[in-house]
């Protein structure tokens, strides 16, 4: 994660814009929060979508579903509001798509295996985020629940929390229209 954050800081510095709005989804939400803590002066807004990255509950309550140690059908069931429609059919994907999927899966595991999908230090530094922030969550997210999103939002000064109904962990896919409307409204604030 340390490397990944600094890689993205390099990217930010190479952009022609003085400031940008940064959006991170799921694991990418964790990454975006880390970047916002470190490099707020290059941002004019932050959007976190069903984000990982912090520890909220007690030590015996896992905040984020352990996707590596849970049966794949259960992971899919918890990922979507409507799993019947959105669960990917691996048999139908091309070889290239499957290889990309495997690479992503390996990378997610490498970055997030332990502690599982969070940085114990991040929570205490979220107070440094001074840019306008929107935290968006799928109301039916079973990977990481909306209550976690609300707690995340409360740790970022002045942030706004929005639920997207009839969406799971990927509101940008399951309710793309409502998701875009919510984000555009934030951008046009």
């Amino acid at each position: 994660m340390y490397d990944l954050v600094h890689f993205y800081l390099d990217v930010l510095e190479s952009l022609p814009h003085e400031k940008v709005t940064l959006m991170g989804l799921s694991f990418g939400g964790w990454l975006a929060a880390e970047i916002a803590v470190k490099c707020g002066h290059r941002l004019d807004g932050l959007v976190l979508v069903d984000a990982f990255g912090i520890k909220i509950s007690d030590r015996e309550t896992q905040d984020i579903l352990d996707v590596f140690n849970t049966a794949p059908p259960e992971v899919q069931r918890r990922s979507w509001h409507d799993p019947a429609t959105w669960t990917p059919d691996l048999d139908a994907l091309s070889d290239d798509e499957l290889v990309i999927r495997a690479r992503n899966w390996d990378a997610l595991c490498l970055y997030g295996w332990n502690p599982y999908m969070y940085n114990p230090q991040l929570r205490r530094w979220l107070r440094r985020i001074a840019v306008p922030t929107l935290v968006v969550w799928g109301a039916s997210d079973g990977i990481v629940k909306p209550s976690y999103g609300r707690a995340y939002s409360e740790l970022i000064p002045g942030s706004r929390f929005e639920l997207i109904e009839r969406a799971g962990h990927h509101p940008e896919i399951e309710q793309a229209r409502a998701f875009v409307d919510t984000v555009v409204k934030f951008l046009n604030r």
Partner: protein
Amino acid sequence: MDAWWQCEVPYPFVPQEVINATDSVRASLPNRYCDPKVAADLFEEVIDEFLLCDDLGLNVLAVEHHAGINSLLGANPLLVGILARQTRQVRILSLGTLISLRKDPVRVAEEYATADVISRGRLEIGFVKSGGTEMASNNANPVNNIERYWEAIDLIKKALSHHDGPFSWEGKHFTHRHVNIWPRPWQQPHPRMWSATGDPETAAEVGRRGLVHVLVLRGPEGTKRAYAAHRKARAELGLPKVTTDNFAYAAFVYVGDTDEEGLRVGSKLLWFLHTSLKSAPQYSRFLPGTAPPEAAPQIYRTAPKPGPGGVLSAGQNAARLTSLSAEQAMAQGILFAGNPDSVYKQVMDFYDKVGGFGHLSLVGRSGFMTHAESERASGSSRTKCFRVFARSNRSRSTDAGRSASGEARRAILAVRDHPLVDVFAPFQGVTKRV
């Protein structure tokens, strides 16, 4: 050929309906199904069987697996410690503490050095890469497992062989600033090291390092391929050729008075394949890091095909094994069973198919095989096994004696010095140690 007896202390006494209903008999099956009183009896029986091996002069092999019905040996170093003290003559192979699961290889080196000293130099150290369910059971990241594996071996080797005061290790995965273990090992510079692996990449590295290379239930093709990768990697670096003493094979073995008995009782060993390999997809084919991403099209789809060159992933190999009949297992060199002559012939046929190996590990008890069946005091299966392999010792010593290589001659001398060679007289009328 040296023979090694192993029993993984399986726990088969989980109700069949529970096994049928669960998606995995490893990692996630609740331990309420493991009765500690039954487990205590199993440990007592199996440790007695190890001690009987010591009486017979048959080397012993202790494995490690975690959190499943296939094995209660999650704490392998404890068994190794018991064997170090309670056996008196045979060699003890730990195959092994699962080092990529352990946070501190220096502590592993301490355990091994201690066992080597307690046993007065009878320890051999084996390294195993670990399986998918063990990643879950031990919170071990599967993606960089192999990197940790090799680095841990490097650190353990240095900790065992460095005798000049504290040294510092600041590696990619392990850091330890003040390494200076007491006691140092009995054997210098360190006990012989083994590695169990089937995939060609790791096999090549095992070859470059000159470790004893053990293949477990891989059958003739996979075994031959791995041994070839081992030899090729050495040749590419200009390293000395190795003898068969660098190669080992592990299979189910049961020797009966008759073929019928050998096959009937030996078939019980296949419980290990049929029942104890049941592993949920998240611990096997969908586990990150267990196969290169390029293999995903073969692995992710519901009807996977072997990868390039017909190399099966560990998960695919497991899937292949779960439906094997006794006859198929025998045809594939996974089960050697029958009367002493039949078993001898089966082993030597396999030996010839793969180009020879210096060590055979006999997976001698599994599943519902009873203590009595495993022990068989009069006409003991172990004694019979033993006779079978004593015969192969002689046969191979003679073959190897024709070799001109100095290294081969040294290997022969080692074999001749081994207690297995003079097998018959000392083991008549052996009784179980109490």
